C-alpha cells in the first residue's frame, strides 16, 4: 500500500524517496530536540538552527516532485515555523515543542511513505496548529486547544487506516484499506491470546484429566474446546488478511532486471507468471532481497553476452522466468534462466578444495549443485560493480530458511538454471512439538517431526564419533540435544525425536517430550548470536521464552546441508 498514485511518473522511485528523505527528516527531528533543550535553558543555538531550513527545504522539494502534497505542505509550514523561531526569541519556548512534534510527524510519515497511507487528518491538524501559531496568538486558550488536538491526533493516528474506504456501486463498503502496522498489532494481540490460552490449558489440565478419568466431560473442558475453535477461526481469518499477491513484489523486478542487464551488456527479458499467488506480507517483504540476489546472479553469471548466445545458436535475447504457484500449504517460486547453467566440475573441484565435497566417489549432479549453497562456493570470478554484493548463494539459502522455506537448484549445462523456493504461506503461527533439553524448552515444527520414541541406548552405535541408530529399517544419525544446541552432552536421554528432512532422517535426543502446541513465531534479533539450529523464538503459556528450532540444521555439518538442499529439489 503506498501513498502514491501508481501512474505518477515517479511512482517507481518511492523507495528511493524514502531512502534519501528519511535521514534528512530525522536530522530535522534531532536538531529540533536539541534546539528545544537549548531554548528551555535560555540559550541561543544558531549553529543548530541554521541548517534546519535547508533540510526542510530539501524534504519539501523531494515530496513535491513525488506528488506527495501533504508532506510538502507540512515541510513548508515547518520551514516557516523554523524561520519565525529564529527571528523571534520571545516565542521559542512556546514554539519549540511544536517544532519537535511537527518534525517527528514529518519523519514518521516520510519513513512510512512507501508502506502506509498518509494520515490526512493528523497532517491537517498538525499543519493547522503550526499555522495558528504562526499567526501569532498562542494564548492560554490555544494551549488547551493544543492539548485537545494532540488527543485528537492520537485518536486519528489510531484511526487513520480507515480513511480510505472503497465503496462499491450499490453503496456498500466492499474494501477497507488497513495500515499494515495495524495488522501486525492484531497479530501480536492474537499471539498473546494464544499464549494465554496455552497457559489456561496447562493450568486446567490436571482438573480435566481427573474428570476424564471419571468419564465425565466437564463444563471447563467444553469451554476450553470452544475457545480453541474460536481461536482457530480467528487465526484463519487473520492470516487471510495478511495475504498479499506476490505481484506486489514481482512488479519491481522488471525494471531492475532491465537496468542490470543493460549495465552488464546483456539482452534479457523478464517473464513473470503467477503474480496473483498470495503469500503472507512478512514473507513477501523479506523475499525481495534473496530474489534480487538470484536475478542478479542469473544476469551476471548465467546469461551469456548476446554475441556468444548467437554463436551458440540461442536467441540473442535471454529469458528469465519468474513464476509463483501454490501447492497445498506451500508456495513455489521459481527463477529460471536460459543461460550457460552451472558447471558441476568446477563446483566439485572447489568443494574438494574446501573439504566439503560429498564422500561418494561419483556424486550425483543434484548433490553437486546443492553444494553451491555452501559458504565460499560461489564460483564467480568477479563481483559485479553493479550488484556490489557478494551474491553468495549461501546468503540466499540462509534468508529463505529463516522464513521457514527451502531453496534448491537444478541446472542443465549450456541450457540454463532453475532455482526453486518453497515458501510457507504464513510464518506467524506454527504447530510445534515442545521438547525439553537440559532444563530448557524448545519447539520443533510438527511438520518436520516423523516420530517420537523412547531412546534405547543399546540401539545407538557410535560410528566415526557419530551416533547412529536403526529406524524403520534405515540407519540414521542421532544427535544429542545438548550438543546440538550448544550445551553439554548427556549420556542417556530418555527420548528420541526423529526429524524428517529432505534427504534423510535424523534423531534428536531429548530429556522430555512436552506435547503439541501452537506457538506464535517471534523473529529473533539478527544481531544476537545464536546456535545455528535456532530459527526463531516463541513465548509459552507461562510467559517463558522458548527457541524454535530449524530442523534442517540440527546437528548440521556442511555436507548434510548440501544433501538436504539436493533432496529438496
Amino acid at each position: 500500500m503506498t501513498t502514491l498514485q501508481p501512474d505518477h511518473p515517479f511512482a517507481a522511485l518511492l523507495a528511493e524517496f524514502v531512502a534519501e528523505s528519511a535521514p534528512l527528516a530525522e536530522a530535522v527531528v534531532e536538531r529540533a530536540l536539541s534546539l528545544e533543550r537549548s531554548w528551555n535553558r535560555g540559550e541561543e543555538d544558531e549553529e543548530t538552527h541554521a541548517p534546519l531550513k535547508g533540510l526542510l527545504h530539501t524534504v519539501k522539494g523531494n515530496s513535491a516532485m513525488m506528488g506527495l502534497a501533504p508532506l510538502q505542505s507540512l515541510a513548508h509550514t515547518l520551514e516557516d515555523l523554523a524561520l519565525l523561531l529564529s527571528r523571534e526569541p520571545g516565542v521559542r519556548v512556546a514554539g519549540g515543542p511544536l517544532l519537535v512534534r511537527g518534525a517527528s510527524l514529518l519523519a514518521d510519515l516520510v519513513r512510512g511513505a512507501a508502506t502506509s497511507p498518509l494520515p490526512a487528518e493528523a497532517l491537517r491538524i498538525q499543519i493547522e496548529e503550526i499555522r495558528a501559531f504562526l499567526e501569532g496568538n498562542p494564548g492560554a486558550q490555544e494551549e488547551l486547544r493544543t492539548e485537545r488536538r494532540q488527543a485528537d491526533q492520537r485518536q486519528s493516528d489510531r484511526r487513520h487506516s480507515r480513511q480510505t474506504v472503497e465503496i462499491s456501486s450499490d453503496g456498500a463498503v466492499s474494501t477497507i484499506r488497513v495500515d499494515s502496522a495495524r495488522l501486525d498489532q492484531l497479530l501480536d494481540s492474537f499471539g498473546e491470546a494464544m499464549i494465554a490460552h496455552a497457559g489456561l490449558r496447562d493450568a486446567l489440565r490436571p482438573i480435566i484429566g481427573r474428570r476424564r478419568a471419571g468419564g465425565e466431560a466437564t463444563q471447563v473442558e467444553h469451554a476450553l474446546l470452544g475457545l480453541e475453535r474460536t481461536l482457530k477461526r480467528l487465526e484463519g481469518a487473520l492470516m487471510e488478511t495478511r495475504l498479499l499477491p506476490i505481484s506486489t513484489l514481482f512488479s519491481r523486478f522488471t525494471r531492475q532486471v532491465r537496468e542490470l542487464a543493460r549495465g552488464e551488456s546483456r539482452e534479457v527479458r523478464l517473464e513473470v507468471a503467477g503474480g496473483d499467488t498470495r503469500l503472507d506480507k512478512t514473507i513477501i517483504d523479506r523475499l525481495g532481497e534473496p530474489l534480487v540476489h538470484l536475478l542478479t546472479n542469473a544476469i551476471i553469471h548465467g546469461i551469456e553476452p548476446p554475441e556468444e548466445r548467437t554463436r551458440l545458436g540461442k536467441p540473442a535475447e535471454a529469458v528469465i522466468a519468474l513464476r509463483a504457484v501454490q501447492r497445498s500449504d506451500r508456495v513455489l517460486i521459481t527463477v529460471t534462466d536460459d543461460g550457460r547453467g552451472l558447471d558441476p566440475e568446477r563446483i566439485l573441484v572447489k568443494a574438494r578444495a574446501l573439504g566439503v565435497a560429498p564422500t561418494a566417489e561419483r556424486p550425483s549432479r543434484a548433490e553437486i549443485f546443492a553444494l553451491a549453497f555452501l559458504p565460499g562456493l560461489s564460483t564467480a570470478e568477479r563481483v559485479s560493480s553493479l550488484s556490489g554484493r557478494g551474491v553468495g548463494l549461501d546468503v540466499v539459502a540462509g534468508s529463505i530458511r529463516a522464513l521457514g522455506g527451502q531453496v534448491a537448484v537444478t541446472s542443465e549445462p549450456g541450457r540454463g538454471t532453475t532455482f526453486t523456493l518453497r515458501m510457507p504461506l504464513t510464518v506467524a503461527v506454527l504447530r510445534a512439538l515442545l521438547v525439553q533439553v537440559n532444563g530448557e524448552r524448545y519447539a520443533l515444527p510438527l511438520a518436520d517431526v516423523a516420530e517420537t520414541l523412547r531412546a534405547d541406548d543399546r540401539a545407538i552405535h557410535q560410528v566415526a564419533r557419530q551416533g547412529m541408530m536403526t529406524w524403520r529399517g534405515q540407519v540414521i544419525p542421532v544427535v544429542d540435544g545438548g550438543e546440538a544446541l550448544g550445551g553439554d552432552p548427556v549420556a542417556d536421554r530418555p527420548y528420541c525425536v526423529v526429524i524428517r528432512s529432505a534427504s534423510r532422517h535424523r534423531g534428536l535426543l531429548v530429556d522430555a517430550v512436552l506435547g503439541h502446541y501452537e506457538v506464535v513465531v517471534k523473529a529473533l534479533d539478527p544481531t544476537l548470536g545464536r546456535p545455528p539450529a535456532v530459527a526463531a523464538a516463541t513465548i509459552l503459556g507461562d510467559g517463558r521464552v522458548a527457541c524454535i528450532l530449524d530442523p534442517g540444521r540440527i546437528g548440521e555439518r556442511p555436507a548434510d546441508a548440501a544433501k538436504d538442499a539436493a533432496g529438496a529439489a
Partner: protein
Amino acid sequence: MAARTFLVVDDSRLHHQMYHLIFARPAFEGAMLLHAYNGREGYALFTAHPELTAVFLDLNMPGMTGLEFLERRRAERLHPQVPVILVTTESTPDDEARGLAAGAWAYLRKPFTPEHLESLVAGADGRGVPVSHRK
C-alpha cells in the same frame, strides 16, 4: 539528428533517478545522460562536453551552487552555445532572476513533470544558438 546528450548536476540521487526515468521516455529516445553529483563534478563534465544539448543545473548544492557554476562559466566564456537550465523551487524567485542574469537559458521550477521538461528541451533544441543573454 546527432544523438542528444544531457548533463544533470544535482546532489540528490532521487533527482538523478527522476531524470533517468524522464529521459527513458519515447520523446528522448537515444538521448544520453551524464550525471554529476555536485557543482565541481558538473563543471568538469561541462568543460569536457561542448556537444551537450542542455544542462540541468540544481540551484542548491553544497560546495559549488548552481549560481556559482553559472558565474564561473560566464567569466570563462565556456561553451556559451549550450543552454543551461537552472532548477529551482518556488521559494527562490530572487535566485531565478539572478540565475538568468548569470546566463541561465531558462529555469525549471520544482515540482516539475516529465512534460514540463520535455517542452523545455523542445525549446532548447529548436534554438541551437547561444541564448545565454535571454531573460
